[in-house]
Structure formats: structure tokens, C-alpha cells
């Protein structure tokens, strides 16, 4: 890095000199000016800069130089399609939830994965007025050790959707809209999920545990 540049930069050579210089003839540090420009404050001049031809010229040149970086940074880069699904399918393989409902019919056996039961229960819960978020759990107790080994310390090893034959226990965590009667919402969830699982999966006995653990205001959703 050289000393101060002699004249305000006005061509390509002088921008190179500017980028090699530690400071301008007025004493302003080039790094500080570049930081000001790159952080989007090129036109926010301080008292010295308002009267300094060196600083003003340098800020203008550096702003032009940095513009392609700002433009590129501002461009949207969406996630590739299907990325969330790809991640979740790999995680489900790690958890390896192998519990199924089991129904024997004249024509054979019907199995429905516990996570499907959880997803149906969750979607039903989400359709209940007042429910803003509903999450369904699908890790069975007997698989908790496996899940723990593959993932992390499980807080509720007794939890989840336990499915055995045509009996199911479903855990739902829900967040409700502020102002809604929480107890009533929870009761409605239980009733509708039980009906839904009986009708769509043919489960005979369904227990639905509802935990309301968050309340969302309109401001949260803004």
C-alpha cells in the first residue's frame, strides 16, 4: 500500500492508485471510505466530506466500482425445488419410524404408517378455527431409543403416535390465535381428529393428547 494519492481519481489508473493508497491527501482513510460505500452510505456525507473534493471524488468512484456487487447481492436466489422434501426424507430414514396400523381383511393386510396417522391428525387440527399452528408427532415409544441414538436426547420417550392394530395415541402440539377459548379449541381438535382418523383410517380407538404451547397474536403474523 502506498501513501496518499496526489489528485482526485478520474480514470482507471487513478482508481487503481486509490485502491493501493492508504489515505487521501486530506487524510481520509481509503478503507473507511470503501466501508462507507459498501455498507450503502456513499451519499451520507459527514462534515469533512461535505467540503472535501478528494473524499467526494473517491466516494463517487468507489460507489461505481461497488455497484455490481450490490446488484448481485440484491438478486433473489431461490432454493432449488424439492429441497425441503429431500432433506426431510433423509431425516425420516434416520428416524426410521416403522410403526403401522394393521388391519386384516378378507383380501389381506392393510398397513398405514404411523407418520401418516400423525400427518392426518395434524392437518385436521390445522383446520379447526382458532388453531394457527399444529404439529403432529410420529416417533413411537419403542423406537425412542433408536431415534435418540440417531438424533438427540428425546425429552418425551413415551410420546408420539403409538399405533397398534386399530388403536392409536396421537400427540399434537398446537399454537392458538390469541383471544380464542383455548379449552374449547383443544376439545374441538380432539373430537375432530378422532372422527377423522376413524373415518379415514378405520382406527377403532383413538386417544388425542393436545398440548397448547403457544399463543399467536395478529402482530406475530404481520
Amino acid at each position, binding site marked *: 500500500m502506498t501513501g496518499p494519492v496526489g489528485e482526485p481519481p478520474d480514470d482507471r489508473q487513478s482508481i487503481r492508485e486509490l485502491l493501493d493508497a492508504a489515505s487521501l491527501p486530506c487524510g481520509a482513510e481509503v478503507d473507511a471510505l470503501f466501508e462507507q460505500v459498501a455498507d450503502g452510505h456513499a451519499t451520507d456525507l459527514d462534515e469533512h466530506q461535505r467540503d472535501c473534493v478528494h473524499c467526494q471524488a473517491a466516494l463517487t468512484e468507489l460507489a461505481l466500482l461497488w455497484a455490481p456487487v450490490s446488484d448481485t447481492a440484491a438478486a433473489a436466489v431461490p432454493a432449488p425445488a424439492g429441497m425441503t422434501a429431500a432433506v426431510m426424507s433423509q431425516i425420516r430414514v434416520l428416524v426410521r419410524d416403522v410403526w403401522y396400523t394393521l388391519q386384516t381383511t378378507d383380501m389381506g393386510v392393510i398397513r398405514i404408517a404411523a407418520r401418516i396417522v400423525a400427518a392426518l391428525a395434524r392437518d385436521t387440527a390445522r383446520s379447526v378455527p382458532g388453531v394457527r399452528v399444529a404439529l403432529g*408427532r410420529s416417533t413411537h415409544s419403542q423406537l425412542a431409543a433408536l431415534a435418540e441414538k440417531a438424533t438427540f436426547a428425546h425429552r418425551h420417550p413415551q410420546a408420539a403416535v403409538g399405533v397398534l392394530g386399530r388403536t392409536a395415541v396421537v400427540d399434537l402440539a398446537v399454537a392458538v390465535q390469541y383471544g380464542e377459548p383455548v379449552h374449547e379449541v383443544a376439545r374441538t381438535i380432539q373430537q375432530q381428529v378422532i372422527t377423522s382418523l376413524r373415518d379415514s383410517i378405520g382406527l377403532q380407538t383413538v386417544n388425542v393428547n393436545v398440548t397448547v404451547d403457544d399463543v399467536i397474536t395478529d402482530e406475530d403474523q404481520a
Partner: protein
Amino acid sequence: MRPEPAVSDGYLVARARDGYLDAYEMLVQRHSAMAYRVALRLCGDHHDAQDIAQESFIVAWQRLDRFREDSSFSTWLYQIVTRRALNKITRGRVTDLVDLLDESAADPGAEPAVQTEQNLKADAVSDALAALPFPQRAVVVLHHFEGLSYAEVAEVTRSSVPAVRSHLYRARRTLGKRLEEWR
């Protein structure tokens, strides 16, 4: 189904720890664009970036118990993505540089000639970024592209604010010299 309302990352992390995969799925949806974007800007290759982003989410899920609740999930994810990008690069794999701008994200209102120039500029920025040493590239991407503060960049890179600032000073000068022709 109604659109998902805003619940905090902290809430979702806590539920994911309780075994609700749905909660983690919402976190992945929420942060997948960021993870991919940062990985792409750090390694310059679409396929590597996709791998890095996906692996980062799986690693984050496996280490969810180590996540400190007083810190932000996104900062933690930035940390994992940045580290995995560095690992990928230093493993010596050849990375083809691609546009930082996705075709589908191009401004549809822009004239073709303008778009071409924008793409060329983005190419130039991409090339200039790729030529930076990794620590400088990381701080530029995190601060100037992702908008993290110096303190947040320092947390992600496990460095200090003066070190971040020093890397940025050098990186800007190097980028500036490479981008002269676009003035």
C-alpha cells in the same frame, strides 16, 4: 389449507427437539433459500451448493441438542453451512463457477440487453468472489450479501470483530481491482 403463520424459530426448535418432525420441516422451509444461497456464493457450484445445504440441515437436526437456546437458529445454520462449504472446497473438488443469479429469478421486466449485462456483471462478481481466499469470501458473503452485522459475522466465523473488519478491508480492495472494468 391456510398459510402457516409466523411462529418463532425458537418455538420450532423446541418442538423439533420433542420429536415433532413437522416443526423441523417448517424450519427447513423457512431457511432453505438462505442455506443454498450462502453455499452457492461460497463454493460457486449449484450441485455442491445443494449438497452443502441439504447436509447442513441434516447435521443441524442431528445436533439439535447442542443448539444453545440463547442464540439464533439462523446464525447457527450460517455457521454450519460456512464450515461445510469450506470442507467441500478444501477437499480439492473442482468447482465450476456458475451465475449467482438463477435464471428463474431474473427480473422479467428487464430488456434482454440489460439482462445480458446484468448476467455478465454477476459473472464478474462471481469470478471475483471465487478468487478471494476463503476467509475473505466468507466475510463478504455474510456481511455484504446476507446483511449480517460485524458481530454476527464474527460469531458465525468464530472470530473477532476487528478480524472481520480487517478481512473485509482487504477483500473490498481485491474485489475493487477485479471489478474495475465494470465502472
